[in-house]
């Protein structure tokens, strides 16, 4: 453990001499930086997508599962009587936390986006809506339907499950896609770093041969490469993540109209996750370069 810490500290602080034994490489270094930055940029959004889809699924699942709507479809003269009857039944139904009949004003507000503000609601046979909020136990929808059928013939209970389920499924699928994308990005970073490290090791075959001849251990040689690629991936990913986050902050704010777009931005503690991207990129590069270096070195004298 102590040896590991020492190794890590050495890796971060760096041995200036060890760094110098591998010749600097200009162009390929920039390619690695660029690829790491691009991948981190994409990862910011893939991660945001996963988290947002997760939140969406949770919210839809949570809020909608807790509420149901009772529609009273009756001639205008019987509507109030049936509403009162339904409310009485709901009050005595187990699992119902509260039930509230929407007022004309509420219903007017709900219909306004579709019919405009000048609608004369009282002239139309609009069904009365009763909003039912369930408590934690949940209610027995089937039982409630039977009781309502007997006493309030015009009542239709909608517990939202019909349209809620496909939405939750879709959100869940979206979340999975987001995570798969994030994983693919990590794998692509590993592949890219492995290729770059492999190329660097091949290009420096003579350097490695000289170092072996004068008594350098494999770890010493590997570390010079590992450090280089880890730092490149780390700094490239930091830049990419930074740009990605800026893009995310600058995304058009549409919080008044709840839509998917606003949901995409990170919320609360989730802002920590994208900050982990550079660290993860560094870790992936560390592992990938280490594996590539040790495999290459084993084949040399």
């Amino acid at each position: 453990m102590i040896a590991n810490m020492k190794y890590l500290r050495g890796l971060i602080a760096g041995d200036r001499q060890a760094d110098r034994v591998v010749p600097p490489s200009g162009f390929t270094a920039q390619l690695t930086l660029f690829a790491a930055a691009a991948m981190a940029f994409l990862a910011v959004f893939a991660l945001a997508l996963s988290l947002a889809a997760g939140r969406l699924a949770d919210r839809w699942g949570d809020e909608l599962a807790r509420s149901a709507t009772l529609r009273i479809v009756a001639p205008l003269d019987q509507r109030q009587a049936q509403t009162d009857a339904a409310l009485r039944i709901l009050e005595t139904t187990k699992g119902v936390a509260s039930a509230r009949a929407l007022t004309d004003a509420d219903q007017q507000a709900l219909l306004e986006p579709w019919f405009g503000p000048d609608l004369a609601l009282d002239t139309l046979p609009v069904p009365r809506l009763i909003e039912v909020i369930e408590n934690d136990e949940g209610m027995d929808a089937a039982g409630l339907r039977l009781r309502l059928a007997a006493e309030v013939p015009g009542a239709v209970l909608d517990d939202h499950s019909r349209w809620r389920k496909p939405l939750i499924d879709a959100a869940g699928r979206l979340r999975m896609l987001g995570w798969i994308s994030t994983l693919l990005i990590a794998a692509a970073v590993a592949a890219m770093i492995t290729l770059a490290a492999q190329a660097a090791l091949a290009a420096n075959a003579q350097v490695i041969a000289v170092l072996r001849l004068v008594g350098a251990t494999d770890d010493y040689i590997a570390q010079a490469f590992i450090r280089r690629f880890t730092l490149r991936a780390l700094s490239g990913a930091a830049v990419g993540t930074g740009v990605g986050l800026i893009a995310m902050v600058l995304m058009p704010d549409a919080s008044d109209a709840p839509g998917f777009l606003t949901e995409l931005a990170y919320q609360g503690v989730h802002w920590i996750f994208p900050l982990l991207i550079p660290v993860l990129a560094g870790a992936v590069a560390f592992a990938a370069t280490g594996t590539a270096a040790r495999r290459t070195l084993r084949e040399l004298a």
Partner: protein
Amino acid sequence: MIELENVAYSYGGGELLSDISLKLAPGSFHFLTGPSGAGKTTLMKLCYGALLPTAGHVRLFGADVRGLDRDDIAQIRRRVGVVHQDVKFLDHLGVSENVCLPLTVSGRHAEAANGDLDELLSWVGLTNRADALPPELSGGERQRAALARAVIMSPDVVLADEPTGNIDWEMSQRLLRLLIELNKMGKTVLIATHDLSLIRATKAHVQARVLRIANRRVQLAGADL
């Protein structure tokens, strides 16, 4: 120091070396000679663990090379200075840094800071080339820089494979004098060369034994040389 016992080596198609037994005692001075392609370089490589024998045993400082892992080999290389015919350096570093490389890779870089390096560079006559890059050096300068690099760790053994292959007579004499001096300091020296006049020139200064590779075997050459 270095001990070969019934060693054979083949690159696949037939044996290049077979049944070789050889012992390099501390402080000895050996020449290894034979025609081109006879296996001089192969034998040298067996002596510093770059190749494993296909048969028999090679013992380096008492340890059988087959039982050594890569880190053990690295440790042994710090006790064996090697000069190749075709010397390789780190071309992006200056001569003094290249000479110090064995110290650097073994984590003893600080030791190079004291006067040893200057002394060593003046010993091989490269003081005013200390900052030059290896590609700028002449053949003789490269060989001398390689020798300095080979001895900076104060190794017990110095192996030189055709150290005078690319340089003129004057320069090879100078290089040889350096190797003789090392031997007088107690280092074991093994030089592979096909240059018989070099061997004759040396014999005047030091008690050297000549090993000849012929018919895949190593024989002790007679006194006629």
